């Protein structure tokens, strides 16, 4: 009995000693951290991106004597409600990263602070001047900097180079060329049998992408404080998109599109599924820079299995006559500092570190690790990022597009969420009912959005 007691006590002691030894470095770090000002940072990244975020945070913490960033992964769903409760309760985080079009709503309701309240206007202006045009647009509300964009999401046109070369075609530069390529690879719309059995379409417009095509056609969704969905360029863009629904039938398009969702592992539909195929569900497809990673993995797997490896390319969205070149719809991630944040200055230091205001090399490393598009030209020009682009040639067109003056985000206005939903509903309705007039559908949507914006202004 006595021996049992001694053995148990020894085991317990051993366990405690092991736990203490294991935790020692962490405890030491915590003691060191206590001497610095904590910056609580909410972000929504998960998966491999989270590792990149933690790497940035760790590099910042190592570089700092004054501040210590504590990153808190906060799922994106209902982040708004959580933040509002924390602000209303007087215990907000010091820094939040977001990617929804909420800037105007949060700024006008004093949920976030203008950045010139936490640091000098000259400092803010310096950061503002260094941002690419698209990044600057995502950071400004009411001509005041409320956010700092820290990563851009650019859309461009992916194409299957192998499929185009086989038919002697080149990547499209104009809408007419895009239509011709689309027709070349799509089923015969006159044949019900062809349509029903089609495995590939050259191209199919997605109703949610009116935001991009409207800009490419030269339109602006919000002009001089008024909703302008009925601008001729936006009507022309939607009419062009609807022409596909007219040609192939809205139901066939809807059915085919749903098939994209059921690909194994939500695979990029440009990529072929079967080993003997070199063409996927589309030959041309609009998507963002994150798909470069998918293409690279796909090609690597094919090489390993000694299968034919199709080549892919990326080009800017083709334009109609009079359209905007290198244009499109952009969104991105941005930092905001909530009202009542206890350590705004620490948050500002971290923002500057992330975007490369302090050291472009650090920001270049972050962007290369995450496959993210920098927001400053100096980071793009950094040798670390240039080496990344040399390794990832498909990424380069996205970076070039990011520097264009013609990349526009959702309008930064109050009620942006409703604005976005209503435009997408209108585009969907037009594509689902090609017999209806796009102008009439857009007019109705424009009135609804304008009424809502007017109501919010009161």
């Amino acid at each position, binding site marked *: 009995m006595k021996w049992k007691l001694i053995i148990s006590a020894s085991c317990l002691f051993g366990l405690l000693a092991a736990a203490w030894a294991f935790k020692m470095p962490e405890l030491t770090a915590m003691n060191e951290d206590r001497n610095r000002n904590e910056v609580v940072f909410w972000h929504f990244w998960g998966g491999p991106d989270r590792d990149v975020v933690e790497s940035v945070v760790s590099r910042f913490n190592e570089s700092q004597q004054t501040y210590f960033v504590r990153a808190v992964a906060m799922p994106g*769903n*209902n982040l*708004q*409600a959580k933040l*509002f409760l924390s*602000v*209303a309760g007087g215990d907000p985080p010091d820094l939040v990263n977001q990617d929804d079009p909420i800037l105007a*709503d949060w700024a006008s*309701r*004093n*949920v976030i602070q203008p950045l010139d309240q936490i640091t000098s206007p000259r400092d803010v202006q310096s950061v503002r001047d260094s941002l690419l045009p698209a990044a600057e647009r995502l950071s400004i509300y009411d001509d005041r900097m409320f956010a700092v964009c820290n990563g851009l999401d650019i859309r461009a046109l992916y194409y299957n180079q192998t499929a185009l070369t086989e038919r002697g075609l080149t990547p499209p530069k104009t809408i007419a060329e895009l239509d011709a390529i689309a027709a070349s690879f799509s089923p015969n719309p006159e044949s*019900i049998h062809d349509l029903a059995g089609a495995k590939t379409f050259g191209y199919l417009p997605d109703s949610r992408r009116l935001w991009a095509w409207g800009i490419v056609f030269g339109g602006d969704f919000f002009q001089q404080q008024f909703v302008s969905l009925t601008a001729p360029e936006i009507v022309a863009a939607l009419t062009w998109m609807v022409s596909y629904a007219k040609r192939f039938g809205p*139901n066939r398009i*809807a*059915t085919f*599109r*749903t*098939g994209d*969702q*059921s690909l194994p592992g939500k695979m990029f539909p440009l990529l072929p599924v079967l080993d003997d195929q070199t063409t996927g569900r589309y030959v041309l497809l609009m998507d963002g820079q994150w798909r470069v990673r998918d293409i690279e993995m796909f090609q690597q797997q094919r090489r390993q299995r000694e299968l034919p490896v199709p080549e892919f390319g990326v080009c800017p969205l083709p334009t109609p006559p009079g359209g905007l070149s290198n244009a499109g719809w952009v969104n991105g991630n941005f930092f905001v500092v909530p009202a009542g944040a206890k350590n705004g200055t620490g948050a500002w230091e971290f923002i500057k570190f992330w975007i490369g205001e302090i050291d472009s090399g650090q920001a270049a490393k972050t962007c290369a690790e995450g496959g993210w598009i920098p927001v400053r030209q100096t980071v793009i020009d950094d040798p670390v990022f240039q080496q990344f682009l040399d390794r990832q040639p498909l990424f380069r067109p996205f970076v070039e597009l990011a520097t264009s003056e013609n990349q526009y985000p959702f309008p930064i206005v109050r*009620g942006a*969420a*409703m604005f976005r*939903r*209503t435009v*997408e*509903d209108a585009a*969907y*309705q037009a594509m*689902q009912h090609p017999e209806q007039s796009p102008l009439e559908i857009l007019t109705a949507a424009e009135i*609804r959005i304008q009424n809502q914006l007017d109501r919010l202004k009161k």
Partner: protein
Amino acid sequence: MSSLPTRLLTPFLFCSPWLIGFALLFVWPFAASLYWSLCEFDLINPPRFIGTQNYSRLASEIGTEHGFGLALKNTIYYSLLSVPLSVALGVGLAVLLSAKVKGQAIFRTIVFLPSVIPVVAASVLWLWLLEPDSGMVNYLLSWIGLPNQNWLNQSNSAVSSAGFDAVANSWSGQPLKLFGSKDAVVLMSLWGVGNFVVIYLAAISDIPQSLYEAAEIDGASGWRKLLHVTVPMLSPVIFFNLVMGLIRSVQTFASIYVLSEGTGQPGGSLMMLSLKLFLSAFDDLEMGYASAMAWLLFVALVVTTMLLFRTSRYWVHYRVAV
């Protein structure tokens, strides 16, 4: 012997955890939402009293194809189809499962099993089942000669002018695309019918055997026994499930949120009242408008339930002890 005030107070002290919880988590939000429904309130700034403007706005949207009007229309469609179908299917399954056959317990378990699967998991499963090109539902429909339906990618619905047009067009050789996203959600709602079946089974086992024996002596067939004995004797339970099903159908949220990725798409066809309310409150930051919507919904449910109670005297038969 303790004093009278102490004796009066003691029971309340024992109940106080519940009373405090009830007051804080139920009465207070209830009262606050009534006040907010008369305010402009964005969750962060203090509510600003605006009278009945939120209600006027809701009234102006009724009958339109957007906002509250669209959500109301979608919800009515969903409730009118899902509630009667779940009652019919529930009663039908309960009658079958009450038959004394080998493996009865296994069949009952199979019917109840979907009810214990979390809604989110079930919704993801249904996304696969309803996939137009390779989903199992379309595969089953192909047995009766129906072409692939677009389900969650089509805003049209079967019981509508568009549905009738689709049937008419199919006579001229066009493929019959009948079902849309709302029909998909109705179909999904039947997945959880096992909860109701359990209640029906309990009620069926409670029906006196003598009634069936009397019906048999009168020469009633199985069908007539079902119509004239089982269904009337089940009517109080059917009534209960009808009311509960109606309330549940109006509150359906999780499955709609998952299927439409929180957008109410395609084409606003999945914008049900619960989702509209959520988006208005937490996306559009119009808590006052959302509260007014919630109150309108509450009143509509109370009125509908009262109407159901009024009609119940004509079709609900309560057993009288002799």
